[in-house]
């Protein structure tokens, strides 16, 4: 370890407060028969104008985490703990009234299913204009004019005609553009995109992705982008967070996480997609099933599926280990290697 260069800590310390800061977010759904612990302590920062990609298997709590940032969960059954701050707003703490005002203006969201995300009985123009009027209190004409601009922005062909169309008259790709237009209508500072391209054809996926990335850059928005698709993550992410059982188990700059993953789960996930030569293969390719969120075991949640798991991995939750470049992993067998970089080493003994 003598060749280790001292990490330059000043580089990693942000000059200003990050735009988004989530600390120890926990979400559980309580019902008579069970408590589902969907999110179990998530912390991350996101700078203005940056894109964070969240990847992870189905059921790992990605959507729950996203909906928490808009407080969209059913109120009576959900317990949210931790802090979420976006800009100057304390998302976890503001009143319901204030939260409604923030939705769609400070933070907006694009959902996975464009086929069902729009009200089938209202025209596209009505639905976009409704959002504009809700937040900007402009006249109906001005709202429609803005809706037209927005359809133009998201590259909907012949936008005048499309404004008067009903959702069922549009293809999936066009509908998703409409949903994006609606989300952008009040110039949000944070865009939450929950698998916005998963339901679309491959060629349309790329178009939507390129469009989102371009608009995000132009508007200087921050974006949290959930995806199953590592190829997508590689294309648009500044930072990547890998979720497992409601926790971020690896986090860092996109190239660090995607090119030199250190957590066994991330490694297995990348290996399984690389082997198949197909980015669209779902991440379920790893043997075994994700844990039951109603009865989470102690210790590392990945232990039952981890080929490096030692007997003590199930005793306590591995703490986050972070290197000087902000690359973090939660695994007992990850340490700081030569050159100060985060490094997985199967020989590291888990604590007793």
């Amino acid at each position, binding site marked *: 370890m003598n060749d280790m260069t001292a990490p330059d800590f000043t580089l990693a310390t942000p000059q200003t407060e990050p735009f988004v800061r989530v600390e120890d977010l926990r979400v559980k759904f309580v019902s008579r028969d069970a408590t589902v612990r969907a999110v179990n302590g998530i912390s991350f920062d996101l700078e203005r104008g940056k894109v964070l990609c969240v990847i992870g298997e189905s059921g790992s709590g990605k959507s729950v985490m996203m909906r928490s940032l808009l407080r969209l969960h059913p109120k009576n059954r959900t317990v949210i703990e931790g802090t979420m701050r976006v800009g100057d707003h304390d998302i976890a703490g503001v009143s319901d009234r204030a939260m409604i005002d923030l939705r*769609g203006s400070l933070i*907006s969201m694009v959902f996975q299913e464009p086929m069902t995300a729009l009200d089938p009985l209202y025209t596209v123009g009505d639905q976009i204009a409704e959002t504009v009027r809700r937040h900007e209190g402009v006249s109906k004409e001005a709202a429609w004019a803005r809706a037209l601009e927005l359809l133009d922005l998201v590259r909907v062909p012949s936008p005048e005609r499309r404004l008067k169309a009903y959702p069922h008259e549009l293809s999936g790709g066009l509908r998703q553009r409409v949903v994006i237009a609606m989300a952008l209508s009040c110039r949000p500072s944070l865009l939450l995109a929950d698998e916005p391209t998963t339901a679309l054809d491959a060629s349309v996926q790329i178009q939507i992705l390129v469009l989102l990335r371009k608009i995000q850059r132009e508007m200087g928005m921050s974006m949290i982008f959930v995806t199953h698709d590592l190829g997508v993550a590689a294309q648009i992410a500044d930072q990547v967070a890998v979720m497992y059982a409601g926790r971020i188990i690896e986090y860092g700059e996109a190239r660090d996480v995607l090119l030199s993953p250190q957590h066994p789960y991330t490694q297995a996930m990348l290996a399984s997609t690389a082997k198949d030569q197909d980015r669209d293969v779902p991440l379920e390719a790893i043997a075994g099933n994700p844990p039951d969120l109603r009865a989470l075991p102690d210790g590392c949640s990945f232990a039952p599926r981890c080929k490096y798991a030692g007997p003590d991995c199930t005793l306590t939750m591995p703490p986050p280990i972070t290197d000087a470049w902000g690359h973090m992993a939660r695994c007992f067998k990850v340490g700081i290697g030569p050159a100060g970089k985060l490094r997985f080493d199967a020989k590291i003994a888990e604590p007793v």
Partner: protein
Amino acid sequence: MWLYAARRIVLTIPILLGVTIICFALVQIAPGDPIQNLLSPTASAADAARLRAAYGLDQPLPVQYFIWLGKVMVGDLGMSIANNTPVTGEVLHAFMNTIVIALISVVLAFVISMIFGIIAAYRSGKLVDKAITAIAVFGISVPPFWLGVIVVIIFAVNLSWLPATGMGASGSENFSYFRWADFKFAIMPIIALALPPLGIMTRTTRSSVAEILNQDFVQTLRAKGLSEAQVIIHAVRNIMPQAVAMLGLQLGYLIGGSVLVETVFTWPGTGYLLNKAVLTRDIPLLQGTILVLATAFVLINLVVDLAQSMIDPRLKRS
């Protein structure tokens, strides 16, 4: 839209023709020879044949049908056997009495059930939900004629607030829904008629609102910052196609099935008239009443269809 409406209207014509064929056939299937009923026991076979020819009954059936249809088209439904008056006037008069209280009842039930259903869906599992469900179940399970008797006992007999039966001093001729002295006669029939549809529609509204609130687009509405009141407006609009269908169904059910309630309240509507026609074996009256009711049914369905397609753009295509 207009094309769809025109097509839908044209399509009702064969249905209406079918209705007339069934009404015509009804008389043919009815047991007993109508001519025998008119003849005195001593009449000869020649008398019978003459009477048969006079009524056109010696013609082949299709010819008889078209002659009858021709008359129906110009509003001639024949003469009532019992009181020898034109059936048309009597039936239309009774129909007006029925349709007005049926409409009032069903609209009342509709409005209340919408409010109840939305509240119950939002407060699902809470006390209000349970109370509303109790009212709805009561409305569905209580037979309306029994309810009729109970409201008569309470409001007419015990409290003397409302008159028990009939249409009051103005009678059927001069009855006005805008005059309290007349309208109070309609109150109890309306209550008895409104309760079952109220129960059924509350249940359906509750479940369709709950279903809509679970749909993805509601999350989009909330995510774009709409208040819960604005979300409810979207939800209500989305349950409207179904609600309108339900409304039409209940209205049809009320105008066709009000025999018992109209009999309990001696309300001179079509139910009352049907009852009378059956008991006196007045075939033309029976035929005319059924024809008017069936036509009303078909027209209600037409209106429901058109209203639905106006609300839901997806329906216009098919």
